[in-house]
């Protein structure tokens, strides 16, 4: 995968700890401090127990490919020289409704059901992103 200048959007207040952790090379997901349910994306309140308290634990980084697509149009101009490219949906091992959109670290075609592990890499412009590589 070529290193391109990716569209890094403004970060909302709730999500700032996620991005700070990524820049520090760690995958952290917001978790309810009362009942332990992970929240994705980061939000003020737990949607199971309705508690507001939370913490940001590191997660194991193990996941499974649940779906993928291959984009052939430059919907975002940043990717015009990178077409076509694959995007994956990854279900984290921690919780069955914790599904993140991302990309594989290599060029291989994604396979639904494949087990993957998070790796954090430079994404251009001094920023980092989580990618996924086969176990």
């Amino acid at each position, binding site marked *: 995968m070529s290193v391109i200048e*990716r*569209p*890094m*959007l*403004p*970060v*909302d207040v*709730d*999500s700032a700890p996620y*991005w700070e952790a990524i820049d520090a090379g760690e995958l952290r997901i917001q978790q309810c401090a009362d009942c332990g*349910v*992970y*929240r*994705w*994306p*980061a*939000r003020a309140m737990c*949607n199971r127990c309705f508690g507001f308290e939370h913490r940001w634990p590191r997660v194991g980084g193990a996941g499974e490919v*649940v*779906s*993928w*697509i*291959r*984009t*052939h*149009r430059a*919907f*975002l101009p*940043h*990717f015009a020289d*990178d077409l*076509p*490219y694959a*995007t994956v*949906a990854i*279900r984290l091992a921690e*919780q*069955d*409704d*914790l*599904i*993140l*959109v*991302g*990309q594989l670290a290599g060029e291989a075609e994604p396979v*639904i059901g494949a087990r993957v592990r998070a790796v954090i890499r430079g*994404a251009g412009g001094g*920023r980092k*992103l989580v990618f996924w590589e086969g176990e």
Partner: protein
Amino acid sequence: MTGTRRVARGFSGKAAIAGVGFTEFSRNSGVTTLTLALRAIRAALDDAGLPPEKLDGIATHRVNDSASSAMVAQAFGIRDLPYFIDHFGGGGSSHSIVAHAAMAVSAGVANYIVCYRAINARSAFRMGGTGRGFVDSPETQYQAPYGYYTPPQQYAMIARAYMERYGADERHFGAVAVQQRENAMLNDRAMMRKPMSYDDYLASPWIAEPFRLPDCCLETDVGVAVLVCSAERARDLRQRPVLIDGATWGGGATLFSIGEPDLNVSGARHMAPRLYGMAGLSPSDVDVAMLYDCFTFAVLLQLEDYGFCERGEAGDFVLSGATRLSGNLPVNTHGGFLSEGYAHGMNHVVEAVLQLRGQAGARQVSDANIALSTGAPGYVGGVTSALLLRGDA
């Protein structure tokens, strides 16, 4: 089906659609969204035979891309508007505004409410960011850096999971596109009336695999309006009333939020029992269905969500010809968003009304008396809405 089985008849059958109107479907209207709205509203009032002075309610949905109800009220010289709603939202909210209008006239808040959607969705304000800034949504910061941002990508992700799980493939997607094109060829207002074979479908370019170009809806400049009033008032107007027997709201969890681990369950699936319950109807009562077809795959999912076939069976149901004009359940008889044009949902309501009034011309479904018309199923936007309509006796 899952979901809370609250069978509330509510305002079932108390309100009616008394008129429909639309502008030309084009790629470049050359006019403002206010002009599109006014042309469509005037057409709907003329269709109903209602003098414009009688209009006392205005409902629209928009995503900061269209003329407001206040602008329309000013254009009609209204100084005291008894009812309005400027509903934020896209396809999931399209049928909601008709439901709101039905509820309002049933409650006696207003007498004649026009519901409109007016967009320059090709020439000025394309979905997915072209021509505007990034959508203000907490998900986008996590997705755009990976080049994942637009509706075809979002729905393609769900479609691939469905294909893997149920063995669906391009034959099933292609059949939806080809059948709707056949319908559009019988519809003078449709944008895409050139014949399209399955081979043409296969030869078309990829957009976001597994979607090819004909899997994706058109982008359209258009205004569409429907007039809602009480069933009694509708019977005094020009057209055969179309009664609003079912009108429901639903949704919540999306593909991007926690709360729904199954990629192939939409808000519509949870809502459908409530819709049929309100109308006192079942799927087998439906004569014709306008299913929100932002993408071919959305039609397959809704055939299952709304109970016309079991999960995983929609592809074969379509291939069997059941959804053709000659089949047991004609679907998107106008050509849908794929071939008529994309009015964000309201053109489905118009086609359902024309079918129930027996005014669908060469594509008329014989003895059509009950129609289902649906908004976006809720995968992406989170909310959904739908209507069950009945031709008045």
